[in-house]
């Protein structure tokens, strides 16, 4: 859309003053030459990108002023207005979408320029220079622009500040369970045995029982029941040997850490529960 061709010869002198300045271009937009700003410091095809980097029209104005090596206090409103509007017109010709704020600024500058063109009566010296308002705005903006740059330099989290963290320990959130002393366990066994005595009368025969098999049976039962009452594991019909085999199986399972024996309160019922897998 934009084709750049000649170096503006009028800029030679300018170039010497700014040796770092790259070539300056004339833009041709839709075959029509666009009048370039008096002091064009930016190749027009870079304008869009450049304008993106400005935080607004004031930022852009400050840039134009700085490029002329001028102080804010030293600005020529007429000149800066012309330059600014040339840029805006150029952008418009290039169909760059501009934020309305840039147009508002253009209007403001034009108004300022027109006010300065009017002759000022000598006796009205105390009247404020029309430039003063613009200068004030630029200065005020520049303060906060600089403040923002300073804030940007403060060390901040994840750039210069890194919070120290440690991996959390495992939490024992469950209520601690009471340890079951062996004594209580044997008392419970005695209780079971006593009941077995009571129902022994009708015992006719018993199968040969294996401790291993009983261990499997208990584990299988624990798949469906998470808590099994200690006494319910025993079948009085199996007689004394059956009880002993079951008891041995429980002890074996306990030894292998496949089950836990818990008691929720003193003298309360004893329960068997499976060990929860710890990941």
């Amino acid at each position, binding site marked *: 859309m934009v084709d750049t061709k000649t170096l503006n010869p009028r800029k030679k002198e300018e170039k010497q003053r700014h040796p770092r300045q790259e070539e300056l271009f004339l833009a041709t937009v839709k075959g029509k030459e666009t009048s370039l700003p008096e002091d064009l410091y930016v190749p027009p095809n870079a304008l869009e990108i450049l304008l993106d980097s400005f*935080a607004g029209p004031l930022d852009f104005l400050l840039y134009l002023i700085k490029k002329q090596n001028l102080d804010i206090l030293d600005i020529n409103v007429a000149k800066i207005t012309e330059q600014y509007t040339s840029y805006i017109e150029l952008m418009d010709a290039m169909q760059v979408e501009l934020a309305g704020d840039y147009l508002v600024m253009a209007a403001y500058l034009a108004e300022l320029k027109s006010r300065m063109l009017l002759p000022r009566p000598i006796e009205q010296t105390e009247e404020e220079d029309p430039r003063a308002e613009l200068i004030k705005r630029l200065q005020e903006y520049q303060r906060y622009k600089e403040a923002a740059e300073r804030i940007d330099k403060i060390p901040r989290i994840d750039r210069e500040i890194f919070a120290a963290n440690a991996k959390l320990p495992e939490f024992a959130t469950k209520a601690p369970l009471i340890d079951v002393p062996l004594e209580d366990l044997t008392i419970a066994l005695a209780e079971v045995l006593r009941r077995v005595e009571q129902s022994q009368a009708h015992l006719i025969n018993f199968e040969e029982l294996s401790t291993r098999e009983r261990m499997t049976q208990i584990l299988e039962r624990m798949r469906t029941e998470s808590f099994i009452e200690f006494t319910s594991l025993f079948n009085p019909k199996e007689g004394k040997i059956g009880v002993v085999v079951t008891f041995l199986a429980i002890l074996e399972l306990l030894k292998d850490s496949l089950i836990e024996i818990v008691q929720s309160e003193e003298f309360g019922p004893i329960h068997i529960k499976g060990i929860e897998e710890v990941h």
Partner: protein
Amino acid sequence: MERNLSEILEALLLSASRPISIDDIVKVFEDPKPSKDEIRNALNQIDQDCLTRGIELKKIASGYRLQVKQSLSQYIAKLWEEKPQKFSKATLETLSLIAYKQPITRGEIEEIRGVAVGTQLIRGLMERGWVKIVGQRDVPGRPSLYSTTKEFLDYFGLQHLRELPELPSLPDLTSIEHELPIDDPDESIDSPQSLN
């Protein structure tokens, strides 16, 4: 079981993943709770212990934070693959206006910046927890007044707003005017001829 207080505090600081205050610390103890002075002493102890370590105890707005020593951050940064987030000029300017001129309305921010401040931008700052609405100005429209938060200070490792970099001073208009060289007299401001 008697525990070394600074040992517990170090554990708290390392696990909190946020700055913790002395009040926070008091809460984790059951009676008899340590006194605030005891906690301060224990924190001092941690600070001392850190001298020979890679971390330091930093007091910021919301409390204390254990962090990697500033001087070592260059090494950490290499380990981080993702570049730290950069903030746009617009965000930083808005943030600095809120920080220095709080409480401030959006209109006042726009006036100084000379550009509209997007709702998205303010919302972004609020979502980060850096900015909050502290009230409404009693003028038509009742615009919201914005201020910065403790989290903002925490993020920048500050305890108080007064630790922010000094706001550049506003130069006096009258004193500077004639000090400046004007290269081209034709371009001098008050000559209408140059305006063509």
